[in-house]
């Protein structure tokens, strides 16, 4: 039957009950599609899924909202304070948006921040960025312990030891350059690196 996709629910429910604490939890009010009334819900964010229950402690969630490809926007309404909307601009036309209300300003801001950075895509981009920084920071340097171990390796005896001192020196310089660049970027790139880069505070 077209339009009837089966989501394997047991695993989703299992994820909703995971022992690890959720990424964010709390009370939110969700606007009903049918009645336009705001209904109180207990919400828990896990990964890119927002689960909601009628009450905290209820076993089975009432539902879940997928946080992929969505936009989270503050509503700035005088009549409906602390509201925000989860919408899917790239989704099919006429696709519903979720109108949510928090209990106060701080809660609203916290939820908007958490929900707008909850997507798998966002996490993946962040991870790639950090992976790049990790490799650039000379993660290949060895510790003195590894150096000693290498001396006892027949393979190393056959091909010889790399120049560890030279490598450490090189990595040290790389890290200093990276630090200078990061400092620069933080200062808005207003200065260019001048003089001796080896200028530690």
């Amino acid at each position, binding site marked *: 039957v077209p339009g*009837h996709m089966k989501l394997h629910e047991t*695993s989703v429910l299992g994820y909703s009950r*995971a022992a690890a604490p959720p990424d964010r939890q709390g009370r939110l009010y969700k606007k009903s599609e049918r009645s336009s009334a705001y209904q109180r819900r207990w919400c828990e964010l896990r990964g890119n899924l927002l689960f909601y229950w009628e009450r905290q402690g209820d076993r089975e969630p009432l539902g879940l909202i*997928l946080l992929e490809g969505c936009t989270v926007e503050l509503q700035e309404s005088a009549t409906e304070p602390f509201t925000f909307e989860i919408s899917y601009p790239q989704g*099919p036309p006429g696709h519903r948006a979720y109108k949510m209300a928090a209990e106060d300003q701080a809660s609203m801001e916290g939820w908007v921040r958490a929900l707008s950075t909850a997507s798998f895509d966002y996490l993946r981009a962040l*991870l790639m960025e950090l992976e790049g920084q990790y490799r650039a920071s000379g993660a290949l340097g060895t510790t003195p312990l590894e150096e000693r171990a290498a001396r006892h390796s027949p393979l190393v005896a056959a091909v010889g030891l790399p120049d560890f001192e030279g490598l450490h020196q090189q990595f040290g310089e790389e890290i200093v350059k990276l630090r200078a660049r990061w400092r620069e970027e933080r200062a808005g790139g207003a200065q260019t690196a001048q003089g001796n880069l080896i200028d530690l505070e």
Partner: protein
Amino acid sequence: MRYSERELLSLSRQPAEKAAEILMRAPKKGSVLKKRLVKLVVNFLFYFRTDEAEPIGALLLEHCKINKEEENVFSISFIEEPDRKYSFECDTEEQCQEWIEALRRASYEFMRRSLIFYRNEIQKMTGKDPLEQYGISEEARFQLGTRKL
């Protein structure tokens, strides 16, 4: 449990990390191998009848185990039901290994652990928290120690 099928359908139409026609068997007893178009998008695995545009099913790839079975075959099972396995028979052993690798890395939880690892390592090496510049260094979900690694 309510969820928007439209959201999932929309997701299933996104560019896939990986997609292929693979023989698939559901955990139901007496189930037979059927050729399906299997598509990995973020942490969901969608499967379609090969001539249809809409998926017939979706698996959330969290709290699951991807196991190598016999030659060319891997399976997906979930922690809550370890004996109920979705079986996939690939054309080659190489394809099988590629899928296993891709599916293991496809969980949000796996990526989160990797992120925490890199964050910690970069902080140790440079003395600087790489998440500070994004304004998310205080987010609970990226803290070391709040999750079992």
